[in-house]
């Protein structure tokens, strides 16, 4: 795969796999009183503040074929370290805080009395979640996905440590740009890569902003 396609596939997969846990964690932080919520919140934000190389190193320790988890996954035919899956995991982990933050913010904006009314109308907590909480959080989920996707696209530090730079497998746009700059005369070859990543990221940021505005307007008008 070319670096652009590879970046898109890694970013997209990483975003998709971080959504279900992201929604669950945001819901726990925002809508429950489980003790240790604060700790969970802090842990989730960690990849946002840790140097990506450190995140990558910790992930490598966790997913190394010699480690318990990594060994198990490798014997199940899903090696994480130095594979496409590793690039996905690295991108998912660094993008996860953005998913959780966006969704938490969106949930905070929903009047919890909507959920009370839903339950008073005979819908259980689970049904209320699917019918009221999730649809009203939807724009936040989309915005978080867009941001996480953009972040995954540009992921370098954690990726190079966990997945290495294997052409066609883990060489995403940033890794390819880095490699090209290392080689003599590489600067002439990276124009397309730079152009593509700027265009994709700009599109992502504008999409996130548009979704956010739309969501705010919808909730304000609804009150």
């Amino acid at each position: 795969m070319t670096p652009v396609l590879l970046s898109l596939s890694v970013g997209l997969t990483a975003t998709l796999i971080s959504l279900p846990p992201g929604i669950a964690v945001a819901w726990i932080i925002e809508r429950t009183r489980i003790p240790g919520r604060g700790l969970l919140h802090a842990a989730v934000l960690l990849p946002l503040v840790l140097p990506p190389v450190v995140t990558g190193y910790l992930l490598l320790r966790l997913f190394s074929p010699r480690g318990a988890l990594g060994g198990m996954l490798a014997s199940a035919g899903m090696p994480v370290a130095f594979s496409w899956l590793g690039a996905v995991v690295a991108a998912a982990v660094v993008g996860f805080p953005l998913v959780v933050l966006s969704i938490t913010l969106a949930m905070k904006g929903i009047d919890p009395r909507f959920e009370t009314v839903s339950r008073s109308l005979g819908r259980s907590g689970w049904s209320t979640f699917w019918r009221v909480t999730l649809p009203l959080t939807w724009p936040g989920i989309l915005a978080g996905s867009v941001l996480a996707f953009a972040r995954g696209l540009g992921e370098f530090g954690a990726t190079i440590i966990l997945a290495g730079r294997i052409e066609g497998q883990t060489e995403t746009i940033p890794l390819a740009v880095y490699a090209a700059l290392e080689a003599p005369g590489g600067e002439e070859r990276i124009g397309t890569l730079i152009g593509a990543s700027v265009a994709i990221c700009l599109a992502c940021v504008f999409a996130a902003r548009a979704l956010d505005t739309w969501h705010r307007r919808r909730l304000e008008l609804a009150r």
Partner: protein
Amino acid sequence: MKFEVEARVLRRSGFSLEATFACDAASVGIVGPSGSGKSTLLDILAGVESGGRVVLDGRDVSRVKLHRRRVGYVTQDPLLFPHLDVRRNLAYAPGAEGVEDVAGALGIANLLDRMPRHLSGGERRRAALARAIASKPELLLLDEPFAGLDERRRREAMSLLDQARRRFGLPMVLVSHFAEEVIALTDWAVRLETGRVAAAGPSASVLRAGETQIDNFFLATVVSPGLVRCGHVELHAMVPESASGDVRLGCYAHDVLLATGEPQGISARNVIWTMATAVEAAGDAVLVSIATPPVRALVTREAAERLDISAGKRLVAILKATSIAYLGPA
């Protein structure tokens, strides 16, 4: 429906509710000044909050979860689901039935395909009522369902509610601070004061006996939404945005606080220097008439003595904006 209620709640703020009552009535009113625990009592009946014991028609529902209580719970805010049109809001409950029929009874049959944001305030309230009725509840619980509507819309909504309730044979508990509303719509009433039952009995007698009816009426001119001018003072009041010009306002005598100096750091938005114009005995309490706004304040005898209140005394009147109700155009 037979009600046996022992509500008990203690809040960290220090507020406590201890209200016990029993009655057999098709519709019950809960009245009382703001902060007396009316909405908390309703929330306990609904199962939104737990505290004490609720027995309905001999069945103890205290431990029944909110989504199994089968109550039609309508709050002051209509809270229509913003992502669903009116029809899907009405059909939201798992056992919702006769959506068209209920919508017709509440005069919103022509609005079924609209989204909630395109409805007026009155239409949203009727839709919220319709949603509760369509869910086939065993009991309707309404918290100030007509607050903020102007007089004409309020009367309209009241009569629609009354007809619909009778037609669908639904018992009801109504929280309201309009004496007129409670007398017109309920058979039996509980009057709460600072979290205790001050009186209970047939609605008309409870409301006539106590001071809980809106006993102060006065006129004012709307300056801007939420702000009115009365004589030389401006008052923050619960005036709907649609109101303009001269309006009628009302408040309870026991919602008017008196002080001999301006209190510091108080949440009430109306703190007004005024003068006592008359002092008269009212049972164990004293009714103090003040000059502006022209209302009477109900205070205990001890308080009146402690503050040395007599006609001509300069006083500060303190009134929460939420205690001043809009009663319609003048």
